[in-house]
């Protein structure tokens, strides 16, 4: 089963990564969008654009993303993303 892990708290990133399996995806939302520079992000990772814009982080994060596999998505793509996985896990 492919799971989309949704993280909104950057301090819980390591615990969340620990619980994921290789085929799972990670979506960073709310405060967790600042975690895009985290070195351990070997899994398929997305960050929510609206949360970046709200925090004025778009430019800064785009620099991080130059050579990384993190994809920035908006709310509509967020909804579509949830359909590509068997279930979502909101890591709280």
């Amino acid at each position, binding site marked *: 089963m492919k799971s989309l892990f949704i993280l909104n708290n950057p301090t819980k990133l390591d615990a969340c990564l620990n*619980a994921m399996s290789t085929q799972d995806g990670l979506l960073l939302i709310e405060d967790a969008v600042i975690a895009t520079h985290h070195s351990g992000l070997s899994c398929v990772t997305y960050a929510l654009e609206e949360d970046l814009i709200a925090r004025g982080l778009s430019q800064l994060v785009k620099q991080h993303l130059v050579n990384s596999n993190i994809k920035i998505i908006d709310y509509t793509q967020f909804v579509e993303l949830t359909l590509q996985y068997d279930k979502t896990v909101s*890591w*709280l």
Partner: protein
Amino acid sequence: MKSICIIFNKVPYGSQSSRELLDIALMAAAFDMPIKALFIEQGVLQLINKQQPEVLDIKNHSATFKALELYGIEEIYVDANALNNYQLTHDDLMPIAELIDNNAISEHIQQSDFVLML
């Protein structure tokens, strides 16, 4: 019937999350849903044996953990790695959980239809 995996990852009594997760587990058991309870990270502290929240005028919900088995919830697991981090051993805990390692945790999450944390 869909299976559910309930994850406890918080220290007891600082929030209502574990009490609520327990209620959900018992309700799901009443509907005969296959249930797994995972205690990980700080959540392993939920299982410590000698809890006395009465000193804070808080209801001691650790007794309810023992009720899990009465409701037919037998798949109860505790993160061995986290226990080590807190220098705890299996004997410090209520005797209801089986020690598991990190790979087993992600496997249980992967196999369950629903995963719930609070």
